[in-house]
Each structure stands twice: as C-alpha cells, then as structure tokens.
C-alpha cells in the first residue's frame, strides 16, 4: 500500500478517539471551591469531573437565573453517527482512494468541525444569556446591560468569582490531529503521485 494511504487510514482511525476519550473539558474554579468543579463533554453525554459536579454547577448557577445543564443534548445524539460515518468513509478512502479523495475528506471534516464548533458556541451563548426573569441575583455590566455568563469557547476567562477554563481533551485533540493527518495524507499523496509521473 502507498504511504499516503496508510497515513489516511491512521487519520480515519484517529477521529474515532472521541468514542474512548472526552472531547472537551470545562473547569470552574472559585475561592470557595479549592477543589474546582468541572465537566467533561463526551461524544454522547456530559459527565461531571467529581461525581456530583453537574448538580453542584447547576446549584451555583441557579442564583443568577441560568438553566440546568441538560442531561441530554440533541447534538450529542447525532454526533456519534456523524463521526462514525466519516470514519468508515475515511477508512474506505484510505484503502481505495487517492490524494484527491483524501483532500475531499479533509474538507468535509473541516466543514463539519467548523459547524460543530459554531453549534457549541451557540449552545454556550444560549446557556449564558437565557436567564430567568426571576433570577435571584442580577448583575449588570458597566454599560448597564444585563451581565451574561457565557463560558469561553476556548481559553480562560474570569466571570464574577469564577475562573473558567475551556479546553479540548484527549478525544478532541486526537480528532483534530486526525483531520490534520488527512491533509497530510493528501499532501504526501500528491507528492508521491507527481514524483511517479516524472
């Protein structure tokens, strides 16, 4: 088998990582939580880092009128199916295809990735901005607008007494690596092909 095809197969396998490892982790640290609260977003569920962290995050957030973290997200229902399908496609392409197919797969994954991140962003926006009108504590920004509590999409941010860390975990990291690997496969494949043509 050509080197590039092997690389493509590796890429297809790598994107299966989220089935085994968490995709993303959000950690909330506060003075009264020396052991921070946090949650791991897996491919099909949200799980607290400490056994009761999700319940305790909800309790903290209800004071400012935020809704509970859902036990069930519609996105997380279709996510396994989409990833699974792309992985199978990727393996087929890896066995039978050439660098053009690799690149096409890469583009599709990239588009799906951007869509996924945008969806995550929208969910976080809704979570942070949709506040109960009967919220116990209503903070306002300096400009008078009501404060919102949207966790960062990526990175570290301080909101009130909490410092929030939002970063990919092993599952997410390997998946991104897999997508980049498919690009690498396409490049290697193109180089190999042009060399063979000479």
């Amino acid at each position: 088998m050509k080197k590039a095809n092997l690389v493509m197969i590796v890429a297809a396998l790598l994107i299966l990582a989220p089935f085994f490892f968490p995709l993303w982790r959000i950690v909330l640290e506060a003075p009264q939580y020396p052991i921070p609260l946090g949650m791991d977003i897996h491919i099909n569920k949200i799980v607290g880092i400490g056994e009761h962290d999700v319940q305790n995050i909800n309790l903290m957030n209800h004071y400012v009128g935020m809704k509970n973290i859902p036990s069930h997200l519609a996105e997380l229902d279709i996510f396994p199916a989409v990833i699974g399908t792309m992985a199978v496609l990727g393996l087929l392409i890896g066995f039978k295809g050439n660098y053009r197919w690799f690149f096409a797969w890469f583009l599709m994954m990239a588009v799906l990735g951007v869509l996924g991140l945008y969806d995550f962003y929208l969910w976080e926006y809704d979570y942070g901005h949709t506040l109960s009108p009967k919220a116990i504590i209503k903070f306002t920004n300096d400009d008078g607008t009501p404060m919102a509590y949207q966790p960062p999409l990526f990175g570290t941010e301080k909101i009130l007494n909490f410092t929030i860390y939002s970063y990919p975990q092993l599952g997410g990291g390997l998946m991104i690596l897999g997508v980049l690997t498919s690009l690498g496969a396409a490049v290697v494949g193109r180089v190999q092909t042009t060399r063979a043509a000479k």
Partner: protein
Amino acid sequence: MQKISPPSQGKAAWRKASRLLLGAALLTLPLGCGPKIGTESKGALAGNQAERVYVPPGKYDEFYAFLSGGFSGQLAVYGLPSGRLFKVIPVFSQDPEKAYGYNEETRPMLQTSYGFIPWGDAHHPDISQTKGELDGRWCFINENNTPRVARVNLSTFETDEIIEIPNAAGNHSSAFVTENTEYVVAGTRFSVPIPQKDIPIAEYKGKFKGSLSFLSVNPKSGEMDIAFQIRMPGFDYDLAHPGRGVSNGWFFFTTYNTEEANSLLEVNASQKDKDFIAAVNWKKAEEYLKAGKGKKERAHYAHNVYDENKHSAKTTWKEEVTVLDSSELPGLVYFIPTPKSPHGCDVTPDGEYIIGSGKLAATITAHSFSKMQKAIAEKQFDGEAYGIPILKYEAVNAGSVNKAGLGPLHTEFDGKGNGYTTFFISSEVVKWKIGTWEVLDRQPVFYSVGHLMIPGGNSAKPFGKYLVAMNKITKDRYLPTGPEVTQSAQLFDISGEKMELLLDFPTIGEPHYAAGIPADLITKNSRKIYKLEENTHPYAAKTESAARVVRKGNEVHISMTMIRSHFAPDNIEGIQVGDKVFFHVTNLEQDYDVPHGISMIGANTSELLVMPGQTETFIWEPKDVGVWPFYCTDFCSALHQEMQGYVRVSPRGSNVPMKFTLDGEILTAR
C-alpha cells in the same frame, strides 16, 4: 575614663575613691545582664520554637490528637503541632449544636439500663491497632460513671456504638485495645456486691467484687460484644495496657486499694507498701471458654448501634454475660506486687517490660515479662489473694528508675529506647532509658501533669517526635476567665536528646488521656458527604417531589428536603393543636461542607444540623393556633437568610385540609 584632675592635695584620695566606685560599678553589671527570674528565654530560641509549632494558612498539621473531655463527656480533636481544636465529637453527653442525644436518631445512643442519661465521664481514648501499629479505623473510649465503652468511627468522626458494662461500677481501666484489636477492655474502679444487694457498707472487705471485661471487636464492622468478664477481688482497677510482641496474649491492669477500704480511701487505701499489677492471660481465658468454664449470668444492659445508611441508632437489650471466676481458674490471673497505689501500667514497644508508676512512691518500677514467665513456671509465689497467686517481687522485678520525681503517674515511649513519665506532685516530665533505668532529662510542666501522650507511644511503633503533657492545674498560664479556668496541654519536642517545651494550648473539659496518630492515616479515609442513594432512612425524601406530609392519628410525619436555598415543602397547613409533629429533614446536597440546619419556634429540643445526604428528625408539639416559622440555622449560601418556611396550626378537630406546597405548587405536581 577621662577625669579632670582635682587640686593636688586630694589626688590620692580621689584615685582611691574612683577605683572603689569603678569596682562597685563593675560588680553591678552582671545583675542587669543575666536572665530575669520568672521569664522564659527570648530572642533566637523563642523564634525557633514558634517556627516549629506554626502551621501556615492552608497547610495541615502532622498529627491528629484525640484528647478525652473527661467530665464534658466528649472526645476533642486537635492538630499537632499547632494545638488547634478541630472538633468536639459528642460521645456520652448531649450536644445541642449537633443535636446528638436530642434528635430522634441519636437519642438511643445514650440509653442505658438506668434509662436515658444525658451525660457521661469520658476518660481514656485508644486508637485501634493492627499488628501492634496504629491503623486509624476507630477510637474507643470509656465512660467512668455509668460503665460503658464507646466506639468512634474515624472516617465520619462520629460515635457509632455504645455498649454498657454490667456487673460494674465505675469503669476506669478502659477502653484499651489489644495489639491487634481483638479486644477492648473495661475494668471496675469501684467494687460493689455482684449481684447488687442490700448489705452494710462496712462489710466491703471480701464481699465486694470487681470485674475485668473483655469486649470482642468485629474486625470488619468494629461492633463490640462482651466476650467474657473475669470476676476479681474487690480492689480498685485503675489503668490497663496490652502485652505486645513477646507478651502478646496478656493484659496488665494496675490495682490500688488492695487494703479493701470503703471509707476515707485517701488514707486507708494508701497504707500498703505495695499493691498489684494484675497480669491477665486472655489467651488462657479463650481456652477456658472453649472448655465450657464460663458461667452465664443474668444481666441487663444496653447495646446501642448507629447505622450510617439509616442515619439512625437502635438500642438492643442484652440479658446475659459470660463470667470466668479468677479464684477458680488457675493460670488466668497473676498478681505482681508493685509500689505503691500504682496508677499507670505501661508496656514497652517490644512488650518485654511492664512499667508501674506508683503514684505514692518516688520510683518507677519495671517488671520483666520474661522473668514473670520464669517465675510462673518455677512457682515463685508469695502467697495468694482470693485464689490468685502473688508472684515474688524480686523474681519479676527488672529494675527501678530511682529518685525520678514525686508522684509518678503515667509512661509512654518514643520508640528509641526511652520512656517518658509524668510526675504530678513534682510537676515535671522525666525521660529515662529502658534497661539501664537512668534518668536522662527532666522538664518542668505548668502545672502538675496528669498523663502524657506520644503518638503511637502505647504501641509497637511510636512516632517519637512530639509529646503532649496534659496538666491538671492551670492557674496563671493564660488570660484569666474567672474562677473556672481551662485545663492546659503542653507540647514538647522530643526528637533530640533533651525535651524542649514548644507550646501551651488550652483544652476542653478535662483531658485524662489522649491518643495521637499521623494525619495521613486518617485523612485518606475521611468521608466528605453521605451519598443520597445509600440513604435508607424510612422517612427520607431523596428528591423534592418525594417530599410529603402524612397524618397518622395525631402524629404528623413531615418528610422535608433542604437544598440551597429553600425547604420543600416550605408552607404546611392542616396541623392541629396537640399534634405530635415529626420533622424528618433530608439534606439533598451532594457537595462537601454544605450542611443545613433547621429549628422551629418553641420546639422543646435543639436544632438539627444535617450533613449532605443525611436525614434527621426533631419533634414539635404545637400548643397554640397560629402560623409558626422555621428556618435554616447553618449559614449555607448567599440566600441563607431567605431559607425559611411556615406551618399553619389550626384548632384541634378543625377541618382545614392538609396541604404542603413550595411557591404555591403542590409538591407532587413538580
């Protein structure tokens, strides 16, 4: 020294005078430089001591120290080296702060054959051991007034079990464990007729008896059971410690009042030159039991056990106890003569020497276990007392620490070959060498030390870094607080050749004795919350929708929940005057250190303090119609002040319907 020369005729006289003055001045210099009487040394040394007891904010102490509360009835938890008080664990006395002995779930803990008793006298804590080493599972402690032994769970720091001791009055030589926690012992301080009967007090001698009880400890659950009692002569049994290593299988109890006096013991129990250490062969006792030599006697005593999942205690009544008669069973008990009204009976880490501190003598006596075995084999006896052989003193004696001090009480060991003994009358702690019996160091204490504690100092593996002296007289050591002042503990550094005083710290109640343990043996097992799914309390409500109010005749059972920051239900109607209202309250939190409390105006009991996942109950009997508030008593959240509710009480027989709501909504609908 420059001096303007005076006129020539007085020159010689002035020179003489100035030399005298200079000499006098030089002589007075030392008076200003030396240490002032009554003050401690300052400067670099004091700074160094402060460093050794300072635990910076956010850091932990090295050791836990469990000090008995004595007449407070409780067990207090301190950190070493800081001396900070972390918790007062209620054991034998009611505690309204924690509702111990007030709430329905823990009232059974204080049940006895004399009825419910709200107080006890807690003397000697001892931590469980495995193969002679501290293991940090449980702490046992005795009650001296109504004889009982309690077991404190060192994962929850709560009292899980209290068992009463029958055929006993005063329980002093207790609650010490064997090397592998097979048994925890009890021993009577006051001999009484067994069974009790109407008899003139002056007929004490020969007719009053003592009991030494061996309680078996279940290795998994820790639950105790009186395996056997040894009927003993009417002496006073003072303290006890287990044999270990070479002396495994034996237990040693000091006695005083072998004179068998019944009045003015102060004088009449101090007449004999020697009393005894009773050496009990408990392995032999087990053999006698197997051979059917134990007699079952009728008794009536309480056994109270707290269930962590039900969050409730239950009293079981025991009706018999197995007795071994020491006067009839050879080889079970031997008496070792020991000067003079011995108090402490302490065994060296290797188990070879038994140290008797004769509180009315000036010496510490060391008995040798191997010599004792030889003396028994060769029948080197000096008569007997009530059928128990008295071993020849010289045959067992290994040596004495002579002229060590006045009034030796108690000894512990550092694991480096040294013993440390308290001297009450001369107010000092003395360090001496095991085997050579020579005094190595003595340090004054302030004032009049009772017992001392070295973590593990009563085990095969002591941790010889710190020593805590528990003093009986405080007087001027701290800011005064009126006539009644705290009792003072003192922390010494014993890691070097000489003992060094580091810290004074006040203690609750009266510490009689203490047990210390390295912190990490306990911290890794310390529970953070109770899991809601493990809660099997019959009236628990594990979700808000499960909260309910149920009427059973004129009893009303409210199953209420608490979570930041509201009760559910928080409005209740349909209660009537004369009802007996049970508030069964469940804390739904599953987060560390988020307790909630509850109290109701006019309830004739204490508040409840409920930990996450736990359910507790108090009773309220409304006497008047009206609308009555209840509220959360433990600051739980930003909205703690808003955490409250109301109960509407209607006249007896009214037809106001039973209704329980949160925010106007019937709970089952949520």
